[in-house]
Structures are given as C-alpha cells and as structure tokens.
C-alpha cells in the first residue's frame, strides 16, 4: 500500500514538473505582455499594468497589425476548408478505388514529403512571378491566393486521410452503391459525416500550419497591406533595442486564434489522431 502511494506521489511530482516546463513559456509570454520591455529583460515574473500601453503602441505602429490578423484569418480559413476538401477526396480515392498504379503513385507522393520546402521555394516563386504578366495576375505574387494555393494539397494530409479511411467500413459503401447512390454523394453524405473526428484533427493541423506559416508568405507577399501575422511579429523583433513587452503582446494576440480552434475541436482531435471509426 505504502509503496503504491509513494509511486503515485512520484508520478504526480513528475507530471507537475513536466507540465510546469510546458506551461511556463505561455505563462512568461502572458506576464511579459503586461510589462515594460526593461522589466521583461530583467526577468520580472509578476504581472504589471502595461498591457493596455503595449496594446496601444502595437495598434498605433505602422506595422498594420490588425490588417495582418485579417489577412492571416482569410488565408488560414480558406486554406483549411480547401485543403481538407482536396486532400480527403484524394485520401479516400487512394484507399477505396483499386488500380495497378495506385501504390506506385502513392509512394511517389510520399517521397514528395522528403523534399524540403526551401528547395521548392525558388521554382514556386518564379512560377507565381511569371503569372504577373498574364491575366492570371490575380493569383500571382503578392496576392493572398498565391499563399494559399501551394499549401492546398499536402502529402501528409492525403496520407493522414488514407490511413484513417482504412478503418472506414467498406460494407456501407457496397450498401450505398446498391441503393443507387452516386460516388460523390457517397463521399459527401456517408463518408464525411462518419469521419468528423478525422476532419477535426486535420483541420486543427492545417489551420495551425497555415496560421504559423512563415517562409512562403515571407517571399510571396511584398506590400505591407498583404502581410500575415508571423511576418509582422518578425519585423517587430529585429532591432538593436527590441521592445519585448510589445512583442509579447503581439504574440499573445497571435496565439489566441490557434488556441481557440484547438480547444473547440480538442475532443475530436484526440479521437481523430487515434483513428475515427471504432
């Protein structure tokens, strides 16, 4: 009995330490946003009352923080909806429909996960740059679509959907086909509602990736009015004398949407990562 209790005490102690380590950066970030820069560098750990001042400085600066929030939101929401639609169709197709080339095609697709984005960056940049001289200018460089399009279909998401489709009961498909439902209708009316947990998990991952995406928006977007949140935060950060209070405030605000999306979908997220149909 005593031994068991001791083991439990250690377990909780360990969990406390680990959760402290994971939560501390967030705590530090929130505390930092309420203090002046000099208090942040001096390591002050108690809340101050400079949050409003930091917020006002942030909104008053020429960085266009509000505008960047709007841009990020538009990009992240559109990316999430479109990427989920495209990748789930592809993942579903890969698993449900049989053909000789299927697995070969799939391994090539998986190989593309190994090509780092930095290697694709210049060709992509050149491609979108060349659209600037054509009627397709509306999706060329320095437009929001130019940020959205390259991230719509990712090998990871397709793989993720295919894996989860493996546990999707195929008998339902047969039944639906027999009742005369078309393939697209089967996808939207049967597959989609069944796989909600998978969609939720994929939505969180895609939204977070898109919201935090840095490298591609950085080079694709040129004018200040198109910038996304990570770009603005990056611009705030380099300076001989950085204003840490201001940066922390910007980061706190930038973290809110992803935190919100996560907490709303948290229940589904865990289920989705474990496999949706039990």
């Amino acid at each position, binding site marked *: 009995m005593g031994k068991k209790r001791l083991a439990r005490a250690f377990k909780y102690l360990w969990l406390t330490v680990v959760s402290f380590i994971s939560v501390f950066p967030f705590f530090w970030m929130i505390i930092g946003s309420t203090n002046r*820069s*000099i208090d942040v*560098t*001096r*390591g002050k750990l108690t809340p101050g009352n400079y949050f409003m001042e930091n917020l006002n400085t942030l909104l008053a*600066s*020429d*960085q266009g923080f509000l505008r960047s929030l709007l841009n990020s939101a538009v990009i992240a929401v559109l990316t999430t909806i479109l990427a989920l639609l495209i990748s789930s169709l592809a993942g579903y197709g890969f698993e449900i429909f049989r053909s000789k080339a299927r697995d*070969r095609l799939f*391994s*090539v697709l998986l*190989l*593309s996960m190994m*090509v780092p984005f930095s*290697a694709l*960056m*210049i*060709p992509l*940049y*050149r491609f979108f*740059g060349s659209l*600037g001289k054509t009627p397709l200018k509306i999706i*060329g*460089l*320095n437009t929001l679509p130019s940020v959205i399009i390259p991230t719509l279909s990712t090998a990871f998401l397709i793989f993720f959907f295919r894996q989860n489709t493996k546990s999707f009961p195929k008998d339902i498909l047969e039944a639906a086909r027999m009742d005369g439902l078309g393939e697209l209708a089967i996808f939207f009316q049967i597959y989609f509602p069944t796989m909600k947990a998978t969609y939720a998990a994929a939505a969180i991952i895609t939204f977070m990736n898109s919201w935090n995406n840095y*490298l591609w928006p*950085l*080079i694709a977007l*040129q*004018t*200040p009015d198109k910038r996304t949140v990570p*770009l603005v935060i*990056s*611009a*705030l*950060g*380099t*300076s*001989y*004398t*950085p*204003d*840490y209070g201001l940066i922390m405030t910007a980061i706190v605000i930038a973290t809110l949407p992803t935190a919100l999306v996560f907490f709303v979908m948290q229940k589904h997220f865990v289920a989705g990562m474990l496999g949706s149909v039990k």
Partner: protein
Amino acid sequence: MKAKRILAALLGGIMMLSMAACSNDGKNEGSSAGSSQAGEETADSLTIWAWDDTFNVAAAKTAIKYYAEKEPDVKVNVVSMAQDDIIQKLNAALSTGTYDGLPNITLIEDYRIQNFLTSYPGEIKELTGSVDPSKFADYKLKFMTDVDKIYGVPFDSGVTALFYRTDILEEAGYQEDDMEDLTWEKYIEIGKAVKEKTGKAMLTLDPSDIGQIRIMMQSAGEWYVKEDGETVNIKDNQALKDAVAIYKEMVDSGISKQVADWDSFVGAFQKGEVATVPSGCWIASSIRAAEDQNGKWAVAPIPRLGNNEKSVNSSNLGGASWYVLENVKGADTAVKFLAETFASNDDLMNDLVSEISLVSTLKSAGELENYKKENEFFGGQKVFEDFADWTEQIPAVNYGLHTYAVEDIMTEAVQSIVKGADMEKTLQNAQSQAEAAVG
C-alpha cells in the same frame, strides 16, 4: 521488390529536380539581362526597405520628411521588416529576376553587402558621381567600393566603445583615467579586481556570438578573409589568434558571465550585473533604458590588443548602408533621394542624433551641434563627439563575401579552444573547413 520500387521513384524524383534546376539557370540569365535594359529610370513614388522601427525605419521617415520639402511630388514609403526577411526576399527575387514588389532602396548590413554585389552583378546601382566617397569615414567604404566606383550610401557607424559603470569600478579602486587607452590585458586585470572586490562580472560573453572577437580582430585591421574579400584568413591571422587568446583568458580568469542570447545580454547590464559593456555604440540606447542607473555610466575607447602592434583603440561592430536596386522602376529618382538626404544632409544627421541616437559615418557629423551636447546619463560626457572621433580611427577592412559562413565555423572553433583544444591545430582545421565551405 518494394525497395526497388522506392529506389526507382527516388531516382526519378532526383532527375526531375535536377532538370528543373538546369532549366532555371538558363532562364535566369536571359530574363535578368532582358529586364535590366527595360527598367525605367524615374518614378513618382519610391519604396524603402529597412529594419528596426526605432532606428533605421525612424531615420528613413525623417529623411522622407526632409525630402518632401524639396520634392513634394515624389511620394516615398518605408516598409519595416526583419533584417533576415529582407535578405531572404532579396535573394528570392534577385535570383529569379522577378522585380515586382521590390523596393527602390534597401538597407543592407555591411557584413553582407559584398555577397550581394558579387552574386547579383548589375542589380545594385553604381552611385559614382551622385555620392562623394570622401565625405564618409574610410572604414565604411572598403566593402562598397570597387577601384573608383561606389555602390552605396554609408549610414550608421558601428564604432565600438567600452561602456562602464563608474560606481562599480570606483568600488574596485579604478578611476575614469584608468579606463582610457586600455589594452585587453589590462582590462582583464581590472576585471579580476572588480570580481574580487565587488563580486560582479566584468562583461558578458555569449558562446554563440563571437562579436567580441570580431571587434578585437578589426582593431588590428584584420578580418576572416584577406584584403581581396575571398581568401580565407584564419590559420595565419595573428590578430585573430591574439583575439582568441584574450577571449579564452576572459573565460578562464572568471571575469565573464556567460549569457545565452541577446535578451540575456541586454538583461545583464540592465539588471546591473556587469561592470562594463564593450560593444557597438548603438547599444547606448539599451543601456539608457535602465533609468535608475542614470549618471552611473561612462564611455571609454575600446581596449586594444596589447600584443599586437597594429591594434588601435577603435573598432567596429555591425552597421549598415543604403543601396539602390538598378532594375526596379525609378532607380534615378531613388539615387536623387539618397543624394539629397543620407549622402549629404547635415541637418538631417543632426536631427537623427536626438531622435534615434545615430552616430553618422559622415565625417562632417562631428561638427554638428547635437554631437557637442553633454549627455546627462553618461555623467555629462559628450559621448557623440567621442563616437564621431573614434569612428574616423576605425581600421578599414574588407568584410568580403563570407563573414557569416566563416563565423559559423569560427564560433565552434573558439568554443573548443576555450575548452582546452590546441589553438594552432584548431585554427588550421577551421581554415580548411572554411575553405571548403566558401570555395
């Protein structure tokens, strides 16, 4: 069977990639040559890219105000971005020859400009005739001029200085006179006394940033590369060896406090944990942010290498300059803007002293009214006049193409020497690594 299939796919992928790379190269040359003739010379609006809202961006805004009085028809915008972001965007755009959205004028750090000039010939506009090089401190010209051509407008001085706490040094038994004309050897001696009597560290050192070594090396007129900007100069670089030896001594003697990043570097002196800050003059604004230390600081020239005859009590850390992009519409208008503002305007420089504590590299700046003001925070010292004087004594070196590439290798080498590795052997290794990396 499966392995074979994967291998085939992999090979196919590589082939496709390399084909794409080849065709890119070909097109690149064609398109950049084509558009360099097509670029229009004047424009009624200009864009400037710069980093740091409280410094460079603020300076550009003041310059715009001055220019608006002269040329109300030309609209100039400044876009604030992180320095690394500017580099990334310029590289992407210039290497593909896509000029949409590029600025007319951009700020580039002095350590990096040679790389741009060499990698993208014809992209950065020659300013000979519009900018008079003789007006600027010599050290700023070395890396942006080619024989008698000049490619940029020098901006801020990164002149180094030894900021020190008069109260802490007094406690250790040193007066202001003792801090003038120091050698690093003497500095370490003082550091030991400070440590013993006050318990405080003399300075902070960041193992991941060896700016301190760059300061010492340039004070003797040497750099990681030789005069030509390309030949790696590590194993036979006496100034570098002296600098590394001093660095090791600073660690071994226990007078330094180790910090992990910029944040804790700034935090250390703002919390009053160190007696001195040997750094670029631009750190002054961070020092002044600790208002409770008002009047407790003074500034002396940076120490020199006692063992090295060439070393002087002046060096440089950081600093940047303005450049015009040749192939972006409005290059001539941009040149005119720079010529009227940063390249000549004393009034602008005078304003920038009070607005952003700028130490200009215009030689005439030392005569300006605001430079002669006594600074209360630094005990009434005329610090800007001192900075301006020291700026003119900075030994000129060619930063060359590879400062940061070599520095990555050197950072590691310095750490192993500090831990006890043989200096000659380690530097020999670093030399071959650097040659391989930049060759």
